[in-house]
């Protein structure tokens, strides 16, 4: 069966510090991978998605970047965090175009 892991689960970082959130998928090949952000009391905003190694599409301009160094690994990064980067970050994968997304458990980032 397929599983998705993301870490760390919780992170508290000072403004201006770097960020690295990692996500891996197991049990499937060539998944589409996604990073979403969820602010408190709001829906999910798509940040990045990838349909293959080294391919990244950005949905919104921001202080964050994504990379996909391996088929089942997706990384969300920032060189200098802003207060507005605080939120709940969710990694997800899918195997089909226009298909169901499977989400990880999320990483809660607080920037102070």
């Amino acid at each position, binding site marked *: 069966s397929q599983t998705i892991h993301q870490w760390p689960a919780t992170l508290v970082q000072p403004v201006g510090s770097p960020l690295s959130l990692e996500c891996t998928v197991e049990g499937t090949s060539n998944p589409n991978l996604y990073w979403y952000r969820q602010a*408190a*009391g709001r*829906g*999910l905003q798509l940040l990045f*998605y990838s349909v293959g190694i080294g391919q990244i599409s950005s949905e919104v301009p921001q202080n964050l970047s994504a990379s996909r160094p391996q088929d089942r690994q997706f990384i969300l990064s920032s060189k200098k965090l802003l207060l507005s980067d605080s939120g709940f970050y969710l990694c997800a994968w899918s195997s089909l175009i*226009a298909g*169901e*997304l499977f989400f990880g458990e999320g990483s809660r980032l607080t920037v102070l």
Partner: protein
Amino acid sequence: GESVGLHLPTLSVQEGDNSIINCAYSNSASDYFIWYKQESGKGPQFIIDIRSNMDKRQGQRVTVLLNKTVKHLSLQIAATQPGDSAVYFCAENNKGYSTLTFGKGTMLLVSP
């Protein structure tokens, strides 16, 4: 846990009642819709999906209705249980590659 419930529309029901959660979607070209359930501090979980060539789909205790004329989606939960308490999101796909657009969510509170 994650305070995703703040500022969200809330539906309060008694255990055993039927619940109906509504969602208005934005794009008439959307061809795939999903309902997700999100418990506090966790990632969203798939509940049920429906494609635009259907107007109704049933699962275990859940039914999704799609009205394309008015761009409306609803989730019906039969015999609601305390474990159904969560935030429920509808999502639509109109861009391919499973780039789902999520609604803001509705919090369902079930009293025993």
